[in-house]
C-alpha cells in the first residue's frame, strides 16, 4: 500500500528566493526600527533640549545656546521667592492629597479585589473615571460646588480636588497587586492558625505594599504637576507651581523657567531611580 506521504511535496524548501525572505524581513525591521527611533528621539529630545537651554548664559531661549553658565540656576535659587513659595505649596498639597488618597484607595481596593458582583464592577468604573474624563470639567464643577456651599477657595478645597484625581492611580496599582496575590497563600496562613488580622498584617500587607507605594508615587507626581484642577481651585494668594510657570511662560518667557524645568526633571529622574531600586516600580505601572 503506497503511502500518501510521498505525494505531498515540500513546498518551500527547494525554492531559490531566500532573497525575497530577507527583503521582507529587512523591510519589516527597517520600518519598525525607523518608527521606533523617531519615537524615542521624540521622547528624549524635548527633555534634553530644555536641560541644555537651562545652562545658557544668554537672555533668550536660543538653541543652541551661545554659551554656558549657571546664572539662571543662580537666579532661580536666589531671586525667585515666588517660585519657591509656589513649589512649597505644590509639595504640601501633593503630600496631603496623596496621603488621604492612599487611605481611601487602599481601603476601596481591599473591598473590590476579587469581587465579581455588579456593584463592585460599577464602583471600580466610577472610581477610575477621573482618568478618562476631562478633569477640566471636574475642576469647573468643583468650583461651582464650593461656591454653592459658600466655601471660599482655600488650601483644603484644592486638596479635595487633588484627592479626586489622584485616588484612581493608587486604586489601580493596589488592585493589580491584590489580584496578583495568590489566594492560596492566605488559605495557607489561615490553616496554620493565623487570624484574619494577623494574616492581613503579615502576609497581605507586605506583599501589596510595593503596589501601594508605586501608586502613591505616581499620585504624588500627578498632583504636583496638575494644572486642570488647580486652574479653577487656586485662589489669588496661593499659586501652585505649574500655574506659576504657566503665567511665567505666558507673560515674559524668561529663562528661569528653563532652570525650574531642569530642576524638576532632575528631581523626577532621581525619584524614579530611587523608586525603581526600592520597589521595582516599572513592574507596577503597567
Amino acid at each position, binding site marked *: 500500500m503506497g503511502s500518501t506521504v510521498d505525494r505531498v511535496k515540500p513546498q518551500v524548501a527547494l525554492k531559490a528566493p531566500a532573497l525575497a525572505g530577507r527583503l521582507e524581513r529587512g523591510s519589516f525591521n527597517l520600518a519598525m526600527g525607523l518608527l521606533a527611533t523617531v519615537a524615542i528621539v521624540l521622547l528624549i529630545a524635548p527633555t534634553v533640549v530644555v536641560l541644555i537651554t537651562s545652562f545658557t548664559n544668554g537672555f533668550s531661549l536660543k538653541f543652541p545656546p551661545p554659551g554656558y553658565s549657571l546664572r539662571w540656576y543662580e537666579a532661580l535659587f536666589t531671586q525667585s521667592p515666588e517660585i519657591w513659595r509656589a513649589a512649597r505649596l505644590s509639595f504640601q498639597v501633593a503630600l496631603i492629597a496623596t496621603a488621604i488618597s492612599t487611605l481611601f484607595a487602599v481601603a476601596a481596593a481591599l473591598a473590590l479585589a476579587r469581587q465579581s458582583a455588579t456593584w463592585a464592577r460599577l464602583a471600580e468604573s466610577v472610581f477610575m473615571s477621573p482618568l478618562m474624563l476631562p478633569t477640566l470639567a471636574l475642576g469647573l464643577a468643583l468650583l461651582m460646588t464650593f461656591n454653592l456651599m459658600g466655601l471660599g477657595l482655600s488650601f483644603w478645597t484644592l486638596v479635595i480636588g487633588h484627592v479626586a484625581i489622584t485616588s484612581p492611580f493608587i486604586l489601580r496599582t493596589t488592585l493589580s497587586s491584590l489580584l496578583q496575590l495568590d489566594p*492560596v497563600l492566605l488559605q495557607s*496562613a*489561615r490553616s*496554620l492558625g*493565623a487570624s484574619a488580622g494577623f494574616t492581613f498584617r*503579615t502576609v497581605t500587607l507586605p506583599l501589596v505594599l510595593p503596589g501601594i507605594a508605586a501608586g502613591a508615587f505616581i499620585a504624588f507626581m500627578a498632583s504636583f504637576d496638575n494644572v486642570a484642577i488647580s486652574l479653577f481651585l487656586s485662589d489669588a494668594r496661593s499659586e501652585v507651581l505649574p500655574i506659576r510657570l504657566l503665567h511665567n511662560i505666558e507673560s515674559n518667557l524668561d529663562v528661569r523657567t528653563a532652570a525650574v524645568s531642569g530642576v524638576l526633571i532632575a528631581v523626577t529622574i532621581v525619584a524614579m531611580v530611587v523608586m525603581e531600586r526600592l520597589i521595582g516600580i516599572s513592574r507596577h505601572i503597567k
Partner: protein
Amino acid sequence: MKRDLATPMLAGAAARPAGLGSGTPLLLDGITHRYGSAVAVNNVSLVIAPGELVALLGPSGCGKTTLLRIIAGLLRQTDGHVKIDECVVDALPPNERGAGIVFQNYALFPHMTVEQNLGYGLRARSAPRGQIVETVDRMLRLVKMEALRNRFPRELSGGQQQRVALARTLAVAPRVLLLDEPFAALDKNLRLDMQIEVKRIQRELSITTIMVTHDQEEALSMADRVAVMDGGRVEQFAPPESIYDRPESLFVARFIGTANLVPGQLRMGASGASFAPTVGGYLSLSVARPCSRSGAAVLSVRPEHWLLMPASADEGLAATVRMVLPLGPTVVNELELADGTPIKVTTVRTATGERLQPGEAVRIGLAPHAAVAVFQG
C-alpha cells in the same frame, strides 16, 4: 451479590491494620457536598486509623480534592460530619480543628525566609519565643534543611520548597496532615526520593495523613490504605494489595493497572466455579468474587497472572500474539482473542532470551493461585 453503592462503605473497618502508634483517629460520616445541582462528594464515610496514611485516588473530577478541602475546613460540606479524635469539627475553621494542609504549589510566603516560614504558625498563635526557636530548629533537622534556613523560597529547588512546606505545616503539630497532590510538580526522579522522605517522616511522627493523588503508583506504594474514588463516591477502601488483586468493582479493576476484561458465563459449582468466555474456551476458578452468582459475567485477570501455553493445549483460551515489547526485566506480550479482545500478558524475561513471535498462536490460562475478579456482566 449485588453491592449496593448507596450504603455507606464502612468496609474499611474490617481490613484496618493494627494501630500504628499514637496518632489521631479521623472519621468521615456521610459527607456530601453539592455545588448547585452537581454533586461533588456523594455520601462518603471512612474510618481512618490513628497514624495511618490514606491515599484518595481517582481521575480528575472524582471529588478527591473537594473531600480533602472539606476535611481541612476550607470548605463547608452540605451534609455529614467530620470527626477528629471523636469531636465533630464541622463548625471549626482550619486553624482550630488541628488539620494541617500542604498545598500543591506549596504556598510558601515569598517575602519570608525558610526560618520565618517555618515559625509562622507558632507566631500566629502567639507561642513563646523560646518554643518557636526550638520548634523551628527541630523542623529544620527533620527535613534536613538546616543549611538553608536563611534562604528565600525563590532561591530553593522544587524538592526543597516542598520540604519547607511540609515542615511548616508540621511545626504547628497538627493532628491530621493533609497533602494535596504533593508530588505533582516534581520531576520523576525527585518524586521517588520525596515519596520515601515523606513516608519516613509520616511514620516517624505517627501522624494520621490523607493524601490526594491521581498517580496510581504513588498511591499503591505509599499508602497504608487506598480509597479509590469516582464521581464523588468511594468505590473501594482497602490496602493496596487488595485494591490490586481483589478489585471490588469494574471501575476499580479498570482504573488500577490493566484489567484484561473477558466477557462470558460464570457457572458456580460445588467445588469451585468455571468461566466460559464468549469467544470459547474454558477456565476453572477456585473462587469467584466479588460476583458469585451464575450467569453473564466479566472476568478480570492481571497481566502477570496469565499462563502462556502452547497452541496445542486443551484448556484455556485461544489467542494470537500481536506485539512483543521487552521492558527491562519483564516482557509485555500484547495478545488478541478470537473476537479481537486485547489481552496483555507480562512474563519474566527468560535466561535464554526466548520470546513469542508476532502472529504466533498460543493458548492462555490462569496461573495457579491467580487472583482474578469476576464482575456481574
